[in-house]
């Protein structure tokens, strides 16, 4: 990978993160949504039939994808105000840099929400996660990379359509299925105190997904922009 590609990507990411840091709208919205969803999910089951600790992994990763959608939606919508996208496209940088930069900013966003969500699940579902912190962090990073790789590309596509907010979940959620399955299954295992090696095939699946889709989506991204 060329160094100028990465340097330009870092600039795009910094721009997006600066906007987010100064306004904090999306982060607060996504955090509030995440906490709300975690609480609501708790009351959707009979606590005498299913113990909260069994629910925790599923709840965590389903909410992860939905709150991720909130951040992804915004990623390209901000560029439509004042036609900022035109300026971005006119900039003397490779289009892959735009993708990488946007994806990096989204990754920071998604992980920041997750840093809040994991302790919240541990607290509300009375599910001690301290012993599994390392494994959980690994799963979170692997899952977030896959989510962001695919989500950034489809955010660009969806923001150009008439349906916009409605289209993104319809198109992208099937792509999140392997991520949610792998993350929830392996989280369930390590929370039960089983060794990380037992989840090796799920983690390999996640890593393979990240590699394939990060590469494919970066190659495909230029085709989603005006030519």
């Amino acid at each position: 990978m060329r160094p100028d590609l990465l340097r330009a990507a870092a600039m795009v990411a910094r721009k997006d993160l600066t906007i987010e840091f100064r306004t904090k709208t999306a982060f607060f919205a996504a955090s509030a949504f995440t906490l709300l969803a975690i609480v609501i999910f708790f009351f959707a089951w009979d606590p005498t039939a299913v113990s909260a600790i069994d629910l925790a992994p599923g709840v965590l990763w389903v909410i992860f994808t939905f709150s991720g959608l909130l951040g992804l939606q915004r990623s390209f919508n901000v560029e439509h105000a004042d036609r900022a996208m035109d300026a971005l496209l006119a900039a003397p940088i490779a289009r892959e840099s735009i993708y990488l930069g946007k994806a990096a900013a989204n990754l920071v966003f998604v992980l920041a929400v997750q840093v809040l969500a994991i302790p919240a699940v541990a607290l509300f579902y009375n599910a001690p996660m301290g012993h599994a912190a390392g494994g959980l962090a690994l799963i979170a990073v692997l899952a977030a990379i896959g989510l962001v790789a695919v989500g950034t590309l489809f955010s660009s596509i969806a923001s150009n359509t008439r349906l916009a907010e409605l289209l993104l979940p319809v198109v992208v959620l099937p792509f999140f299925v392997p991520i949610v399955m792998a993350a929830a299954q392996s989280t369930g295992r390590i929370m039960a105190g089983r060794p990380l090696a037992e989840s090796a095939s799920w983690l390999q699946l996640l890593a393979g997904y990240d590699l394939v889709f990060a590469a494919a989506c970066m190659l495909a991204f230029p085709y989603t922009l005006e030519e």
Partner: protein
Amino acid sequence: MTAPMTRQAPPSRRVFDWMLLLAIAAVVATYVRAIVFTPVERLQGPAQKIFYIHAPSAWVAFLAFGVVAFAGAMYLWLKDERLDRIAESSAEVGVIFTTGVLLTGPMWGKPVWGTWWTWDARLTLTLFLWFVYVGYLVMRGALDDRAQRARFSAVLGILGSLLIPFIHLSVYLFRTLHPEPIVLKPSAPSLPGEMLTTLLIAFLSFTLLYLALVRARYRLGVLRDHAALAEEE
């Protein structure tokens, strides 16, 4: 940015679609053979006859989505609008056949497995395939610019085909009820000869039906464009 419409020879006025008619006749003939001339399976009884719709529909569904991905990739390379129309037609026909698989599956599963639905690996995979390509069609409907729609669709078609192995792998890590493939084992096909012949005929007639439907849908797209063009003029 609207790409200029490709000027093609105006399609023939005849509504008669000989290929579609032939395909329907072939499917009907397949069924006559399957129901009347093929032995009834000993354990499953007449329920097993649904096999001759279910399996060939599944084959056509995979074929159709393969064509969507391939035509999409070729479109990104050659930028030929006809390729996009092939992809669109194939996706629509593929969704119909996938729906067929998902409807016949429970009908067969109830008497044989004793349940309408089970989260079996291949069942789940088919369901998610259906979701991906319904999303594909929804996205196409939300785009007006032809060139943009073609590019976005190509990207989604290609990524959809990359997703299939991952969904397959993830649902496979859950245990499965589905029979292992019993047909494409040339060394020792475990299906009795009579049934195997009927099944292979069903595969052929369904493939013909797929081709005929894609062709009909393709021509409909061309006609629609001509109508839109005539309205503008």
